[in-house]
């Protein structure tokens, strides 16, 4: 019985077409990822940022990105949003009524459990041991599911190119971290608003900043837990909520939790697809036999 069952399994799996889904099994059974304190990351301190955009310029130089102008004379690099040419951007938040304002740096958060990695159809986005989430343009097929998945709308697409790829902040992984250099933006910051370092150390620095001036900061390190944790953290001024800086109140669970558990349940050990196949096969067999018997009883005039 065992042999025939296994044979059935093989045939159904191979030709019935659920074989591919086998890989879903081990990948989905994983536990929630624990943040690694030794990975690299950055701390962006909105309270210290003076809005000089030196980091933005440094990023463009490092990654050889063209300028983008939203002004008529197109002399200055003045992007309004992160884009395929702008991996990081300083944005101004202003509340005239309360007379408060704050700058915030937008960039890839290099999530601990990245939604983009979970979503990518071919695995072109991958968390690296150094902490960065790396993108492989060679593998990518441009489906843009990563853009749908990223809760921070970070991955960008080269809309103007005939053969477009995804672009986003690399944490300078290959160009600088590999050479023991900090990220270009953190090096350029004159105000100490971008600290580069290991995740564990960054958390300590952030906490000590809050403790040293509790009247200045919101008592929360954004990114410590949000969406399962990120490697890029934020501090904000007391009177400016993170949400108004484009850092919404996200849950502490990774956004890919639901899709992964659904996929996992459906394809666990092939059981559901095979069960459906078997049941349908049984019904079909039963109905055909009944039809044949009826036909024989009638004198076999049916041709099937």
């Amino acid at each position: 019985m065992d042999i025939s069952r296994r044979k059935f399994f093989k045939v159904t799996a191979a030709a019935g077409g659920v074989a591919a889904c086998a890989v879903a099994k081990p990948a989905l059974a994983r536990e929630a990822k624990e943040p690694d304190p030794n990975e690299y990351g950055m701390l962006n301190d909105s309270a210290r940022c003076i809005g000089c955009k030196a980091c933005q310029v440094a990023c463009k130089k490092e990654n050889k990105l063209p300028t983008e102008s939203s002004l008529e004379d197109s002399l200055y690099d003045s992007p309004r949003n992160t884009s395929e040419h702008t991996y990081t951007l300083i944005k101004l938040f202003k509340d005239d009524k309360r007379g408060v304002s704050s700058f915030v740096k937008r960039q890839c958060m290099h999530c601990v459990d990245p939604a983009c990695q979970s979503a990518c159809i071919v695995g072109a986005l991958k968390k690296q041991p150094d902490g960065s989430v790396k993108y492989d343009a060679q593998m990518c097929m441009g489906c843009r599911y990563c853009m749908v998945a990223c809760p921070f709308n970070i991955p960008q697409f080269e809309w103007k190119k005939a053969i477009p790829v995804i672009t986003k902040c690399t944490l300078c992984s290959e160009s600088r971290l590999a050479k023991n250099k900090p990220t270009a933006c953190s090096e350029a910051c004159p105000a100490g608003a971008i600290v580069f370092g290991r995740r564990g150390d960054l958390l300590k620095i952030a906490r000590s900043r809050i403790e040293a001036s509790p009247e200045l900061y919101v008592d929360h390190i954004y990114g410590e837990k949000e969406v399962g944790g990120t490697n890029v953290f934020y501090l904000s001024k007391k009177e400016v909520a993170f949400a108004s800086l484009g850092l919404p109140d996200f849950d502490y669970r990774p956004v890919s939790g639901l899709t992964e558990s659904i996929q996992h349940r459906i394809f666990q050990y092939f059981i559901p697809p095979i069960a459906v196949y078997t049941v349908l096969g049984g019904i079909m067999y039963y109905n055909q036999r009944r039809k044949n018997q009826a036909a024989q009883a009638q004198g076999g005039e049916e041709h099937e």
Partner: protein
Amino acid sequence: MSRPAAPLRQKFFTFNVAVLLFFIGAGVVFAYFRFFHGFASITNLSPGFPWGIWISFDVACGVALAAGGFTTAAIVEIFGQGRYHPLLRPATLTAFIGYFLVALAVCFDLGKYYNIWHALVFWNGTSVLFEVAWCVMMYLTVLAIENLPAVVEQYKGNVQLPGSLGLLDRPTNWFLGRADQVLRRTMAFFVIAGVVLSFGHQSSLGTLMLIAPYKLHELWYTPLSPLLFLTSAVSVGIPMVIFEATLATKFFGRKPETELLSGIAEYIPSFLGTYLLLRIGDLAYRGVLAKAFDGSLQGYSFLVELSLFAMPYFLLKRPRIRANGTFLFLCACSVILAVVLNRFNVFLIGVNPGNGYNYFPSVGEIAITLAFVAFGVLLYKIGVNYLPILEEQAPDHEPA
């Protein structure tokens, strides 16, 4: 009573074909810009809306509306309702055309379309899209096989290759004969595989957007989404068959098959009922029904979607309505529109990526989508004209 299927063999180049060719031509022009000057030249896609109507209509609706193939196959072949056999071949053909167009549309939407085969080699099991891609690919293969008997039947025993290739007539004939036998013996296997594969990707399409809990509106963001996608796809299967059959009747000057269609329509209310029960139960359980009445665009869109699902449910329960060809057609249209609107809601209308992004399809996107639809209709016409798809009818009002 039951007659064999036969090619229609009508005049091919009619006015309608010219109209179809016009739409296809317009699409080709825009496609040129898409492929050589980038998405920005003709689409309204943006970082906040990386997926537009090519995904929500061409792919998501395309797959759902091709559900006539597997539902009819299941009813006729698996559940043994042989009397609906005449509907099977056209349904299988349209399903194949539908999926073929879905695959083509995906190629238009992919940035690096020539990397499409990467899904075969680089596996990422956590990706819902990966599973969708595999199931769609395999189901397209299965559909091709399911359509083979019609091709084999047409050419078996009368292959006449031109010129010196004529030498190959006999081997080809022999081969087709063998193929016929093999297909007859193995078809059951493919029919069931087709249904299982359909279950797989119809539901997974509903899982796709669940990766974006902060972007998709609560009315559609539910863990039940895969099941809702599956049940709504099953519900739209027969309505699509009715829709196509009715139009084919009109445009090919055939006798209406109302009796057959109203027979099979009897199943629709139970499918729709299941769907509605799950849908409303889910909304009530999650306590978000009130959102439908908050006066937002999403709320209204949901209400329209729900009524389009609910009306045919109540109407089609009545035998009198089912027996009337026009009502039947209208009810079928309602279900189809409901499913189309539902897919739009999940992939576009219910999506708010934040940052003030919004989206409305551009002329170019719409033109390319229309071109796909026109191409599909044209392929169907070619199919039924030259292959034995539709059942032969007594030639009383149309001398052959």
